[in-house]
């Protein structure tokens, strides 16, 4: 037992979680077709089961990183293999590993050709996502961030629907655009570190100590924020998302909505905000972010309301929900940040479930048009029940998971930004406005299309896929305490830190003078 205890308190557990999927994915390329599905599922299940104890071995109340490692990798550049997790990453890691076996099972139903490459890509994606959540070195983080691109690009482009290539390329280029500018900003930080401390480093902890001149902070915050805002996606950068979602196979949509978008939120919380506190708490910046988030909530709610395509509708709800999370993130109170992270998990679970349910319908009728359905409650009651529960969770019905997160965000944000919160709250109303009619049109009306009368209800495999998600939806709704407890310390630490910075700014620009004095005249100029 002590061996296991050792493993779970060291970085080995994280290292295993990060690289096991990649190894398993490469192995998938060589496994005979007959056993492929079982093996892929087995690998994903092992990943999940190994990660699960982390939930209990995680030390609650500690804001420092846990299970850390720092192994020199490119010593010449001060780059190391640094990993670790805190409350924010813990739940995102578990969300990822939880969804991996589910998406493999979903793919059993849907993917019938080029299966080897498919499962290899799916598992490789797992490596990228987990790597992003545990990386504590900017170089490492950037590598994992980019590594998620190629598998997702393949998932959309090879196994997607009609306009899959367009969607895949759009997805790739949008995301890459942000990340390349982030790379330049990372290099500027590398240079500043070298200049201020005399030794190269890209480790997360070292970067936090940097003294970045205020004017430069805005540029660098912009570069980081652009990368993350595209990923989230925030309002004007969201156009890739509906395309990618509609064209992706179900498992791709699930992973995209549940995890990839959260990488953007995570990036803000982990990097953009703590690195550039002056920029992130600057009133103008905060108002711009809030403005975009509110635009995202309100505008996409309207757009979602008129979507005839079920998957596109769900995609737009994602933009709205993520807008909510961004409000919580940038309100920067400990409740709102906790709520933001919790809501990220909730959104992952419920939107994942929505996409899976939409996928089940597609399996049966090969269309996502809402108008092609109707009266499903009478034909396939179990399915309809699931859809109703998940939709209600998505519009934050009390007692289901969505409510807890949104409530925390609203409570936390109201303290500091009452008007923003009030406007954002209308988003909750809008959520009902677009989600419920969809459910009504699909589930409740009369059966108008004869074909629908012959639909089969959920099979055992489909039940096995959706039930774990339903359990999580209810569990996190009625007993969110364990989840919140694990996030709280890290969220509080972040909000305290930022409050401190904000205070310092009010007191006068003493730190600014300090920053200016410690940076010699040779700082990089943007010419």
């Amino acid at each position, binding site marked *: 037992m002590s061996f296991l205890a050792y493993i779970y308190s060291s970085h080995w557990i994280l290292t295993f979680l990060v690289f096991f999927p990649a190894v398993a994915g490469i192995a998938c390329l060589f496994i005979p077709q007959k056993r492929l599905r079982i093996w892929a599922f087995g690998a994903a299940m092992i990943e999940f089961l190994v990660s699960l104890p982390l939930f209990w071995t995680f030390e609650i109340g500690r804001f420092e990183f846990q299970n850390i490692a720092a192994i020199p990798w490119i*010593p010449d550049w001060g780059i190391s293999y640094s990993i670790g997790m805190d409350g924010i990453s813990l739940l995102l890691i578990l969300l990822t590993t939880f969804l991996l076996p589910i998406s493999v099972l979903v793919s059993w139903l849907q993917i019938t050709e080029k299966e080897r490459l498919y499962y290899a890509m799916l598992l490789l994606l797992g490596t990228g996502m987990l790597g992003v959540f545990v990386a504590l070195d900017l*170089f490492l983080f950037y590598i994992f961030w980019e590594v998620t691109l190629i598998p997702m690009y393949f998932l959309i482009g090879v196994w997607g629907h009609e306009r899959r*290539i367009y969607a*895949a390329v759009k997805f790739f280029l949008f995301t890459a655009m942000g990340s390349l500018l982030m790379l330049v900003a990372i290099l500027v930080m590398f240079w500043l570190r070298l200049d201020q401390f005399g030794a190269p480093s890209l480790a997360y902890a070292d970067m936090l100590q940097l003294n970045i001149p205020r004017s430069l902070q805005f540029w660098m915050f912009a570069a980081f924020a652009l990368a993350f805002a595209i990923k989230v996606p925030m309002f004007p950068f969201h156009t890739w998302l509906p395309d990618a979602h509609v064209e992706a196979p179900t498992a791709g949509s699930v992973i995209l909505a549940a995890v990839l978008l959260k990488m953007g939120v995570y990036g803000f919380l982990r990097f953009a905000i703590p690195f550039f506190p002056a920029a992130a708490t600057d009133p103008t910046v905060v108002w711009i972010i809030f403005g975009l988030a509110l635009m995202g909530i309100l505008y996409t709610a309207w757009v979602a309301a008129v979507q005839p395509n079920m998957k596109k509708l769900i995609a737009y709800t994602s933009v709205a929900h993520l807008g909510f999370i961004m409000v919580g993130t940038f309100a920067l109170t400990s409740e709102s940040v906790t709520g933001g992270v919790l809501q990220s998990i909730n959104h992952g679970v419920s939107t994942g479930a929505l996409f899976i349910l939409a996928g089940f319908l597609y399996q049966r009728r090969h269309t996502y048009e809402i108008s092609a359905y109707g009266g499903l409650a009478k034909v396939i009651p179990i399915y309809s029940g699931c859809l109703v529960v998940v939709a209600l969770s998505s519009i934050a019905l009390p007692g289901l998971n969505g409510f807890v997160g949104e409530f925390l965000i609203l409570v936390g944000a109201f303290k500091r930004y009452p008007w923003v919160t009030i406007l954002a709250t209308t988003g909750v109303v809008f959520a009902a406005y677009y989600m419920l009619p969809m459910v009504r049109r699909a589930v409740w009306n009369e059966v108008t299309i004869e074909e629908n009368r012959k639909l089969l209800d959920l099979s055992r495999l489909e039940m096995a896929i959706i039930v774990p998600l339903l359990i999580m939806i209810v569990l996190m709704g009625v007993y969110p305490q364990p989840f919140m407890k694990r996030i709280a310390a890290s969220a509080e630490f972040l909000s305290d830190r930022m409050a401190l910075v904000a205070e310092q700014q009010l007191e006068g620009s003493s730190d600014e003078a300090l920053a200016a004095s410690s940076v010699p005249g*040779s700082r990089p100029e943007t*010419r």
Partner: protein
Amino acid sequence: MQIDFSTHLDFLWALMPEAVLTATALALLLYDGFVKRSGAGGVPPIAWGSLVAIGLAAVANVWLMGVEEVGTTGPVAIDDFRIFTNFMFLGAGALTILISLDYNVREGIREGEFYALLLFAIVGMMLLASSRDLILIFLSFELMSLAVYALVGFNRRDRKSAEAALKYFLLGAFSSAFLLYGMAMLYAAGSTTNLGLMRQLLDPRSVGVAMIMGIALLAIGFGFKVSAVPFHVWTPDAYEGAPTPVTAFLAAAIKGAAFAAFIRIFVVALGDLHGYWEQIIWWLACLTMVVPNLIALVQDNIKRLLAYSSIAHAGYLLVALISANESGMAAFLFYLVAYTAMIVGAFTVLLVIAGQGDRRQRISDYAGLGYSRPWAAAILSLFLVSLAGLPPTGGFVGKFYILRASVESGYVNLAVILAVTTLVSYYYYLRVIVTMYMRPELEPVERPVWSGPLRTVLVVCAAITILLGILPSWPLLKARQSVEGLRQVAEQVVDPGQLAGR
């Protein structure tokens, strides 16, 4: 052993690898003239002989590592930079020979001179990277170029090959004139042809018209040689028409050699005049990144696409050089190794897929390749991903290094341009991958022939590409150490105070 160029024998010692290579190349040429030609194809013995010659030169190069040079003004440099580049050119040459073996048999190129010319080109390149004298630089340029002109047009039965050779030759000769004129101006201003002396004699405070003219003409000449925009127009045609192994050689090694001479002249000898040449190089770098990346978007011929991609890579290398600091030059060396591996690897796959008579060269010919030829497609994807600069490949670490160098010396704007043009380049690299994996097969590919040498090349290139991406610390260290000899020169170039004042 110490070398101070006091006796003539010292020159021989200093030029040992080149001498070995030249001697064996001449011997092979003679042997090829007298040996009886067996009628039916097959790999000629001279091909294997040329590999042995490269091996011998590499041994001589290893020996050269123990040789010390007195002072920094000898006409032939014996420093780590030269040793590093020598190994690289020899390696690139060996890879080229390995991929030519089958290609030449397939395309009916029986003449053994092909390999001898290749060896002479390598000699020229090695000399180019090692010479510290303007005249020697010019001579080695000509030695290299003449051999390569012939190589580009080697496939006499092919009209395209002849066209490529003619274009390359005319523009090459044109650019040589520029170079020579620039060198004459430099000589007039600096009153010496020795680059080491020139650096000591030049006074940055009194720079005359002749000097400026010389710098400008040299920049134009080099622009042609490394195919920087707007002097790049010959490149796509030459690359497309040349026999594919020669194209790989052109793209990787020749460019590297020209850049090495560029470092010797601009960064080292004219290092103090950084303020005078950085403007023109800045614009060259900027244009060379932007223009080819845009043109490549609409290419249908994959060889042409890679030609434009290679022009763009020249732009990235220019960014490394304009930084003119230690990390810039180290980044250049590192990137060149990674780039050589990936571009030679990519052309190798192209060469095999093209089939008899180089027929399959359109991107649409690659449709469905991911499933009909999974290995070829996977390995080509690896090289393309690396060329695009995505992690975890050598291309990414190299690009990271270049960006680092440019940020370090204050060229954040070039770094941003590099990032944005990289984004543009993703599109066309992805297009090939899209075609291979996401479009249905049009006509079945005949089974490609993967001979031993081709497999070796692919494995070596793929291994280098991945290793440089995952475990780059040792090569990075080597690259940095190799430019340390040039450092004292470079240190003075970027003066922080001067930067802040700009």
